[in-house]
């Protein structure tokens, strides 16, 4: 019994070391915040359509199917870099991608899509960035998966790369489809 008392401090230190070991993982990307939204119902999206005369973009239109939401902007260089991969999300995985032009002039977003191609099934203009804030984005680009029931399933912060698409987004899509 007395022995156990002496072991107690060692046990406490061991537990603390374990906690800090996980918490201070040098591999951890400190710029990516844990999303507060995953597992919750997606925020309301109700934005003017980007194209001239397009109808308003709402998430309700896509109820009952798995969709990806991609926040982008014409002024954002990483968005340019990830752009070719967005088409793959639809082509390879059959998931439609909704575009939200975040804090961008509509004419600039339109020119951006005209130049690089339009991978989106529908696009809305979030001029004051409020929808982005509702999703808790820290910048553009960010990509979310929203399930058939309207629950946010996954968040990818930053530009998609071929590796990111294959190793992170693809498994998340596979899991969402189950």
């Amino acid at each position: 019994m007395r022995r156990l008392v002496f072991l107690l401090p060692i046990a406490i230190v061991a537990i603390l070391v374990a906690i800090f070991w996980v918490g201070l993982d040098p591999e951890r990307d400190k710029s990516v915040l844990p999303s507060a939204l995953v597992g919750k119902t997606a925020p309301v999206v109700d934005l003017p359509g980007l194209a001239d005369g397009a109808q308003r973009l709402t998430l309700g239109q896509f109820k009952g199917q798995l969709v990806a939401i991609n926040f982008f902007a014409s002024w954002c260089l990483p968005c340019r870099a990830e752009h070719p991969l967005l088409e793959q999300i639809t082509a390879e995985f059959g998931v439609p991608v909704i575009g939200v032009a975040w804090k961008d002039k509509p004419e600039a977003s339109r020119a951006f899509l005209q130049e690089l191609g339009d991978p989106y099934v529908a696009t809305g203009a979030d001029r004051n960035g409020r929808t982005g804030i509702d999703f808790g984005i820290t910048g553009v680009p960010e990509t979310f998966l929203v399930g058939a029931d309207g629950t946010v399933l996954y968040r990818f912060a930053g530009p998609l790369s071929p590796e990111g698409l294959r190793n992170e987004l693809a498994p998340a899509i596979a899991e969402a489809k189950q």
Partner: protein
Amino acid sequence: MRRALALLAVGWLAIAPALVQEALAQEAQLADPQLEQRARDLGREIRCVVCQSQSVADSDADIAQELRVLIREQIAAGRSDQEIRDYLVARYGDFVLFDPPFKASTYVLWIGPFAILVLAAIGVAIFFRRRVEEPARASELSADEHSRVKRLLHDGPEDRV
């Protein structure tokens, strides 16, 4: 040369706060100075989510600016500071607050140091109590042991059998 550098530094220090003020002045402010003060105080508690070591009030980032506008809007709409904090935490998580909340997942952070201090104090107390008790045990020796101690002190080590 050194003097010129020092002068430059002093000059910069004098100008820098004015520049920050200028950035703030370009934004629409609340007409009521008391509400505006609340918005600024709140902005200092909220972490800028891209430039994470800066507060929303200090940051020039796009999103920080948008969050400042949002805080002002909500204050103007009559929301309380706590409601605005909750609004931001719902979107960005506790991380957005510079002052981490007291809840189950942060108990270790808040209580840990004090718990360790208390445990250490108890440990030290036990250690010293033992030391005080130790000499008293000498009287607990049996008569046989007493004579052996005496013999040892007098004659030196016993021969091993």
